[in-house]
């Protein structure tokens, strides 16, 4: 029996503390159906309206502390947001970096830098979602990067090139990793790189060029060129030479969140495959009645549920400030595999119709394939597990 006039605490339905956030994101995404994404995909356009809606509703600021105008939620909440976007058939890659890239600034920036940028990032007035790391000659081997930032009085002069710098045309700030000391002059391999926050509008007048790259998916990715770009030394985040370490701890968050997108993709594919297999009748019965159709979907489902447990575990460790490198990497590996297998079985289940754009399957199929390669390729995760978790000799 309960009292009839007390105030009850907020219950957590189904033990999912993010059920309300999931619901909110679902409602938002329902305004952006497959037809919206199909047109953008065809024309390789940025999903402005979707990103604006998500920004305005505050979801992209979920990880920014309340004192800077965000919601101050743990990574597990951002996991729920991105998973739901992808499960709805949308694509969070257009703006997911706005959620987590500010982490480098938050953890390693000066209070003045945080005050200057974070409230505007939280409000969506500033987009901080371009990450300049990968270079043509330094892909998986980040430490081999060659773009230089040379100190000159109270500025740095940047020369070099980045590739696959996604969303560069849709970002006000770029987080840039560049070499400030030659590789052969530093004591540790991981020293000599520094992290900068580049004001894109200014830089475009002063030596930065952006060139879009057309790819098999609508991803707003680019290559960027720096020619004697001069930026103030106050644009540096943290200490000179420590940039690589600063981005490393942001990578766990990135991996967990990309894994969440993969889980969303996998669930999208499974939802669609189940619905279609139940409806489509050939040879006088639903195709889902054939084990050849049913079992791959069942397997994809089991894989997805297992991968999701790893994503949740990685997020829990991240949010408890425990080490989570192995869990984050395994979450990314398992979730990307689960989504890819689900994509394959969903396309196969749809027969010829899976290839038709209006079904969204072929688009999502192309989109989820990316996660076998970016932001870290499957092989590099296996190499990491082999060396750092299992203690095998370094293979790369």
């Amino acid at each position, binding site marked *: 029996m309960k009292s*009839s006039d007390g*105030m*009850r605490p907020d219950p957590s339905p189904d033990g999912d503390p993010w059920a309300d*956030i999931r*619901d*909110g994101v679902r409602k938002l995404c329902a305004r952006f159906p497959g037809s919206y994404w199909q047109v953008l995909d065809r024309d390789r356009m940025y999903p402005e309206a979707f990103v604006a809606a998500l920004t305005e509703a505050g979801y992209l600021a979920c990880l920014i502390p309340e004192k800077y105008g965000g919601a101050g939620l743990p990574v597990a909440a951002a996991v729920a947001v991105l998973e739901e976007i992808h499960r709805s058939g949308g694509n969070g890659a257009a703006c997911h970096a706005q959620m987590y890239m500010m982490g480098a600034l938050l953890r390693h920036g000066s209070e003045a830098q945080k005050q200057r940028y974070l409230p505007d990032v939280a409000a969506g007035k500033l987009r901080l979602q371009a990450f300049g790391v990968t270079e043509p000659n330094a892909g998986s081997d980040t430490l081999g990067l060659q773009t230089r930032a040379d100190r000159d009085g109270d500025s740095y002069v940047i020369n070099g090139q980045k590739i696959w710098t996604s969303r560069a045309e849709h970002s006000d700030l770029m987080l840039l990793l560049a070499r400030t000391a030659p590789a052969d002059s530093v004591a540790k391999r991981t020293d000599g790189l520094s992290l900068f926050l580049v004001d894109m509008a200014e830089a475009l007048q002063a030596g930065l060029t952006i060139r879009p790259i057309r790819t098999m998916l609508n991803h707003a990715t680019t290559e960027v060129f720096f020619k004697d770009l001069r930026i103030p030394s106050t644009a540096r985040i943290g200490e000179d030479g420590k940039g690589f370490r600063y981005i490393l701890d942001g990578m766990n968050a990135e991996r967990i969140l990309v894994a969440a997108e993969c889980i969303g993709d996998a669930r999208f594919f499974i939802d669609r495959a189940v619905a279609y297999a139940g409806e489509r009748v050939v040879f006088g019965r639903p195709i889902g009645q054939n084990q050849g159709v049913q079992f791959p979907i069942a397997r994809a489902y089991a894989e997805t549920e297992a991968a999701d447990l790893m994503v949740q575990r990685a997020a829990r460790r991240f949010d408890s400030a425990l080490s989570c490198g192995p869990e984050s990497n395994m979450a990314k590996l398992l979730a990307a595999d689960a989504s890819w297998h689900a994509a394959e079985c969903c396309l196969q289940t749809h027969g010829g119709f899976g290839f038709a754009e209006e079904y969204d399957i072929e688009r999502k199929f192309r989109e989820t394939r990316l996660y076998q390669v970016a932001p870290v390729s499957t092989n590099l995760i296996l190499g990491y597990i082999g060396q750092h978790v299992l203690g095998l000799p370094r293979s790369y």
Partner: protein
Amino acid sequence: MKILVAVKRVIDFNVRIRVLPDGSGVETDNVKMSMNPFDEIAVEEAIRLKEAGTASEVIAVSIGPARCQETIRTALAFGCDRGIHVETDQPPEPLAVAKLLAGVVAAEDPGLVILGKQAIDDDCNQTGQMLAALLGWPQGTFASELVIGDGVFDVTREIDGGLETISVNAPAVVTTDLRLNEPRYPSLPGIMKAKRKPIEARTPADYGIDVTPRLETVSVAEPPPRPPGRMLDSAAELVNILREEKGVL
């Protein structure tokens, strides 16, 4: 002016409803539940009136089992100020709901009560009308537009073949139709704030209302399966079938 909105927890409109094997009702275990879509429209209308400065406070009421609080939280996330949950074991029948709402109205003294025109689970379309009768208030049902004037509300109603606009004296009961507005989706700050907004816990006994069912459900059955369609080769063939087989031409 205070506005009271009624929000019912129903099976989500996306869910494929399954009838229980014994025909006593429909499956609700592990089924996704949501706010009745017409009630979302009621909430939206009330919040817009608050944003416009016409309403001072919006109170969301839900009647039913413990988990109706989730539905109230949703209303709070949209922007309602506080909630009242009247807990019952089962969702009561429309008359009992109307009596309980009348009890809440007596305690809260709102100038306007907005409800959905019907709930998508039982499609009763009774509660708003019964509430108006119990309160002795005017009612504007099936509203597709609501204009708040000085002591009167102009309600545009969707009726067969067109629209009808009536003026009702305040206080009044209004029920929403689909085209009244397009409800917003909750923002993240809205969801966060909702967690800290109060929900008052009540029981039918607080209002002296007996919610014992007066109706007996005889049976619940699936709609008959739709016969499969047929592809025809020509309009002539269609005309022929309509004339010869169906005898409708």
